[in-house]
């Protein structure tokens, strides 16, 4: 009986619209504030993950790997090799003056494979005409803005060894 009276007192349309009109904005704002704070927590978590990833990358140790065929390289030519893993293509360059340097072969623009152009003594990316200096790998033309990672080399009795990556 009491339930019947209650049902009669509350119109049926009230079930579909339980929030008063003047409370509507208030309720929506509260939900938005909660949503924004949740987003804030997610952003803080993502920043924390980046910090962890950076800390791990900073303490990375590099393998020591001999570069086959590097000793017999002629001036003005280049040699491709893989370092530090088989999935990381690199290029070793012996310029016209006989100086040997090595860089990652992955263009810092959109990851195309760069190549050595002896005529201009430059490292070029054929995809978007990016250019890098042979001396230090800095971008000198085209869209790339970051230098090529440089491979640290050591010359030993058995030839050139790759011993690390300077990024």
């Amino acid at each position: 009986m009491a339930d019947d009276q209650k049902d009669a007192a509350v119109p049926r349309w009230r079930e579909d619209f339980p929030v008063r009109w003047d409370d509507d904005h208030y309720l929506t704002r509260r939900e938005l504030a909660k949503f924004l704070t949740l987003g804030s927590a997610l952003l803080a978590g993502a920043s924390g993950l980046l910090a962890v990833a950076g800390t791990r990358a900073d303490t990375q140790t590099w393998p020591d790997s001999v570069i086959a065929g590097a000793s017999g390289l002629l001036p003005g030519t280049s040699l491709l090799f893989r370092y530090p893993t088989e999935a990381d293509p690199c290029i070793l360059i012996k310029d016209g003056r006989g100086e040997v340097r090595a860089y990652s072969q992955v263009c810092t623009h959109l990851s195309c494979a760069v190549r050595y152009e002896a005529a201009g003594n430059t490292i070029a990316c054929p995809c978007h005409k990016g250019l890098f200096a042979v001396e230090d790998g800095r971008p000198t033309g085209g869209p790339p803005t970051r230098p090529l990672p440089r491979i640290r080399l050591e010359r030993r009795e058995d030839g050139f060894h790759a011993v690390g990556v300077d990024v």
Partner: protein
Amino acid sequence: MRTREQGSVLFAGVLVMVATLVIIQLWLLTAALEALLAHTYDVLVPAAIGSLVLCGANGLLLRYVITFDATVRRGR
């Protein structure tokens, strides 16, 4: 009624502050990602700490505004 109007203004102000802090956090995350890709690792931890502090500030603002809301509702 006056308290309710004040609460509405307060809520709007707090929302603007929270949104501003979230945008700053978004900028921090973008800068940190850029730094990670450029292998500049020394800015990542300060960026994460800054983001965490802003998140804490957002949490406090939300708590304050929900408490205020509850107080207003009880007073109706």
